[in-house]
């Protein structure tokens, strides 16, 4: 199977290691990965902050670049959510029926990494090895927008050496919310404080999630407070193997 990697601008620029892990993982599972170089940003930040006029050209670009592919995979629930759940609204706001049709055709072929693995490839054991105590934060858009269900947990449970600990009030938002964290910094900080407290309560070494944006927010506080707890993207856990660690 051949897929296009939608790396997302955020991962491309700030978390290249997540992209690299995604490529290694997919290839290890026999998936042929293509990276359309023309891709930039799906337009989520603009769209969700209210700059919808500005987002629409980015929507068009995305649709044009990724439409030729049978499947598109991204290591981000949030950006996949934008494409699957909000592109139809964008096309409607643009008043462009043709775009709406193209979106309708493309959207069901765009997958978040964990759902691609579990629902599309039908694997839960990806042969990973990660000897750490980990807790998992199900980010809001993965959970409620694109409804990945327990695919990430199923994948984590199959990772050898991994001690998965339950996060209390896991389903509550960490307070990131894109520009929300800047515009409503105080409220965001209050939400973050509780999330961090729950993470620390698990005594995990690392908090994992399927979205680096939330992880950057959570990790920023974990580092500022010198907790010693790391954040790690799900893709990096799944990509890691015994041979690699021993090497």
């Amino acid at each position, binding site marked *: 199977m051949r897929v296009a990697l939608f790396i997302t601008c955020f991962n*491309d620029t700030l978390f290249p*290691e997540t992209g690299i892990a995604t490529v290694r993982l997919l290839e290890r599972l026999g998936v042929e990965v293509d990276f359309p170089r023309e891709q930039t940003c799906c337009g989520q930040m603009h769209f969700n*902050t*209210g700059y*919808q006029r500005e987002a629409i050209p980015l929507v068009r670009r995305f649709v044009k670049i990724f439409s030729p592919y049978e499947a598109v995979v991204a290591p981000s629930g949030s950006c996949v959510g934008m494409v699957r759940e*909000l592109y139809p609204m964008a096309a409607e706001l643009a008043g462009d029926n043709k775009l709406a049709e193209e979106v309708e055709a493309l959207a069901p072929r765009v997958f978040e990494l964990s759902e691609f693995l579990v629902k599309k490839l039908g694997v839960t054991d990806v042969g990973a090895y990660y000897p750490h105590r980990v807790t998992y934060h199900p980010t809001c858009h993965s959970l409620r927008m694109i409804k990945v269900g327990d695919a990430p947990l199923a994948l984590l449970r199959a990772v050898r050496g991994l001690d998965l600990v339950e996060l209390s009030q896991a389903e509550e938002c960490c307070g990131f919310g894109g520009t929300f964290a800047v515009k409503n910094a105080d409220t965001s*900080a209050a939400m*973050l404080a509780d999330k961090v407290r729950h993470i620390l309560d698990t005594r995990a070494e690392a908090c994992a999630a399927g979205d680096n944006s939330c992880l950057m927010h959570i990790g920023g506080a974990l580092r*500022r407070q010198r907790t010693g707890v790391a954040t790690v993207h799900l893709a990096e856990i799944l990509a890691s193997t015994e041979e690699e660690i021993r090497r």
Partner: protein
Amino acid sequence: MKQDAFSPGGGAPFEVLAKESLANSQLRRNLGKATTTIRQKRAAAVGEMPDWEELREAGRALKERVMRHLDEYLLQLEESVTRAGGKVHWARDAREANRIVASIARGHAAREVVKVKSIATDETKLNEYLEREGIRAIETDLAELIIQLSGEESSHILVPAIHKNRSEIRELFLRELDAGDLSDEPTDLTNTARLYLRKKFLEAEVGISGANFAVAETGTVSVVESEGNGRMCTTLPRVLVTVMGIEKVIPAWQDFEVFMQLLPRSSTAERMNPYTSFWTGVSEGDGPQEFHLVLLDNGRTDVLADERGRQALNCIRCSACLNVCPVYERVGGHAYNSVYPGPIGAILTPQLVGIGKKGPDSLPYASSLCGACYEVCPVKINIPEVLIELRGKVVRHKQDAGEGWRSRLDPENAAMQLMARNFSDVRLYEASQKLAKAGQWPLARGGVIQRLPGRLSGWSAVRDLKPVPRQTFREWWKKERGS
């Protein structure tokens, strides 16, 4: 004077008011406790319904049907109520509604009226209006009484005094109700209110209520409640005036089978609330012998004009979205500065009062778009989607209203324009990635960024920022895989 849902609390934006609430640890504790409790209970009450999703879908569809044909349903409602012996009044705005109520009360020489909790009349600020007209409106809902006695504003649709604890309420009752010996036990406090209000109920000539639903087909109006003050107000006085937003109409009697299952479980997490009254005009020898129904617009028809935003009118005021909202849980209702707080308020208020006002314009941004509200909404209002739509309207309004240079100078707008341009062309995008790596050096210290300038400083107040790595993903790909 135009009255609207948004209180003229100086018009401060949400983020400013939230700061105050966030620093109030008593409020945070009360809210945290209350929202957590009711969340769990709601989940249990909904969990025992195997057909919950089907009910939600029916509720949503019925509301959509009503909104798309609101004019017909209102005319039908008027006809049914009139046939049943009631009188229907139409009010374009708050002032008109208040005037109608006051003139009815004056017509019966009422100096005091009893009132059952109604957000519509909070919106029109009816009590203040009546006060000026020399008529005292007694709030009879326990929480509303507490709010009225303390001269505060409600902070929750369903539990307006959610921000007050028992000892604060005890002090208030000792001061305002002349209650002699009083403990801070809720039972004791409740009984004090019962005795005070019983007298008022027996004396009142005129009762005022809101409405949860009004049936176009039969003219039946209903009030869903717990305490019995709703029954008192709609049964004992000789004259009953009900003020309802025009969006509260439902098509048929049968439709209660949907809404009366959705509402109690979503709001108080009960299988059924203690009391619901359904009355159809005037019944001879039973209850009020004069019934007035005031149909209030006050901005609702503006909400109706937005095809996506109009779903905000589907709201049945259960408050489930408040209880699950992580923002509401921490800041409470006052920061929304509106009679409609929480996620639903964040989409309803700005639409009711119109875009272009500083305070209400900040409300669509009072959300992390986590989607918890949409998940629990009994009539499936896609609140996140409407929030995003309204953000778009706010931005467009700013861009179009701000003269060319002003919107260009607005730092957020300028940054967004620049980024949009960079994202539109992969060469510009790659160049800006390089620039970001080069440009961050004044900020990065020892591998982390601890302080950001200007508007971004809120981020770095509590979080470190990871600097931009040396190599982007696409650079790695190019190196590894060639072009």
